[in-house]
């Protein structure tokens, strides 16, 4: 009777040992094979990765753009003249001086622009002495590029 029991004991012991080995309790540990990812899972992962990369790139772009837009300016970017500081202070909260510096307008056009900026773009209306100072400065610093008259000595229809 001892032999069969011994045999059963041996078999059980072997199974246990092999089982434990397989389970990685000792011996070389083999990680379980992952399930092969489904195409949908792959696509999702790829999409997430791309979205993250896009977002990072877009954020970086936005930061660089903001840095350009916020480039600090000082009144010295405008030509010297009476009223430069007032003009710089009044005219640069919304935009840089580039829009001003690239313009070459008559005094009347500069004056008209002050109303447009208030009516259409919410600039604090510019009145009285401050308006005179700023418009005079602009008209002096940024006059029309060509001599207003041209070769006929002035537009015959512009009387004021």
């Amino acid at each position, binding site marked *: 009777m001892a032999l069969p029991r011994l045999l059963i004991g041996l078999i059980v012991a072997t199974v246990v040992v092999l089982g434990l080995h397989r389970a990685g309790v000792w011996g070389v540990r083999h990680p379980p094979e992952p399930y092969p990812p489904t195409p949908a899972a792959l696509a999702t992962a790829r999409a997430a990765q791309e979205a993250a990369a896009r977002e990072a790139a877009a954020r970086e772009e936005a930061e660089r753009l903001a840095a350009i*837009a916020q480039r600090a300016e000082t009144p010295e970017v405008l030509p010297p003249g009476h009223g430069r500081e007032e003009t710089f202070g009044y005219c640069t909260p919304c935009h840089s001086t580039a829009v001003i510096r690239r313009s070459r*307008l008559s005094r009347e056009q500069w004056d008209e622009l002050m109303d447009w900026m208030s009516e259409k773009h919410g600039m604090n209306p510019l009145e009285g002495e401050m308006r005179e100072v700023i418009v005079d400065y602009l008209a002096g610093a940024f006059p029309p590029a060509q001599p207003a008259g041209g070769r*006929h000595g002035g537009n015959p*229809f512009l009387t004021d």
Partner: protein
Amino acid sequence: MRRERSIQELYRDDPERADALAWGRRGALKGGALAAMGAALGAAIPFAGSMPRGLLPAALAQGGAQGPQYIELPGKARLILQGERPLNAETPETLLDDEVTPAEKMFVRNNGSVPDPVPEPRAWKIRIDGEVNAPLEITLGDLESRFEVVTRRLQMECGGNGRAFFVPQTRGNQWGNGAISCAEWTGVRLRDLLQAAGLKPGAKFTGHHGADRHLSGDGPAISRGMRIEKAMEEDTLVAFRMNGAPIPQIHGAPVRLIVPGWPGSLSQKWFTRLEVLDKPHTGRGMGGTSYRIPVVPIVPGSRNDGADFADMESMPVRSVLTNLAHGTRLPAGTRALDLRGHAWAGDKEISAVHVSVDYGATWQAMEVKAPANRHAWQRWTGRVSLPSDGYFEVWYRATDSDGRMQPHVAGNWNPQGYGANPVSRVAILVG
């Protein structure tokens, strides 16, 4: 190169003399004055006889004391800087040679500040409401699956393109011809969305809204609108891809309108909402002198509130020369020039492009290709011959399918400078 610089130097060091040289003491450029200018330019002017009186030579007219300033934005080519805040930049004509304008060469026009990018573009919502039976609110993700997706090459041009050609100068970005692009846009037709929402009989106009904020921080940057007929056109798109890629942030990501052939301000960037209206829209950028041109021409330089002006619709005929830069110096003995560029005319097509190298005394017809599709620009190519060494101007002029040509001088002056499309001029020096 030394001589080229001397023009600039003359203007910088002694603008009075330069102007006197350019315009002549009593105005007209004749005899001695012209010879003096030839000396200033450092070259003979072979076609001096046919140079129109009072037209400044292109070499002097462009650039002046200081040439253009350039800016290199992230992901962009070297563009001409118009301003940093708001950020505006123009594409030099010689960078517009591609059939399809790549993102890095597309001009930049902002009215306000560029919004921050959104983390989940597909969740971006747009809304169609107003004079419709059932207002439509839809995410960008659903837009692509619910409506037919189309891809077209479409011109997109700033309403103020060409403004720098007006005399006297008008305010605003001083664009040459470079506020133009023809990219490949992918999106759905706006009309499909409007039909899904169902137009009421009162549906006559549109009002467009986007996510960019006004420079003062108060309210929207710009909100323009158009006649419903343009909204129902086949090529008017709600676009979400440019040249097969997501739209760059600076050009209106994740979705924008493309209203080809009409002022670019209608092609709302960072598009959020379209109102259907029974009367013209009144958003910022509508009315007065904004994107409006005189019906009865006004005196250049005069004051006008624009009440009698009309909204600018189809853009005027225009051309660019893309393989020869202004100020190019060519080897002595060069007797022929191979030229090419693009031409377009808003809703119309181009019927001809002509080039003159003798100040318009004679014109040579160029070859013009058919557009890739309606509202795409057209390629022109051709060859002109030069009789000698010396200073030349290459003048180029397109004609639209109604027979209207680019005029010699920018006409119909208006306070904010829309619609200037004169013949363009590039100065070259042979030898």
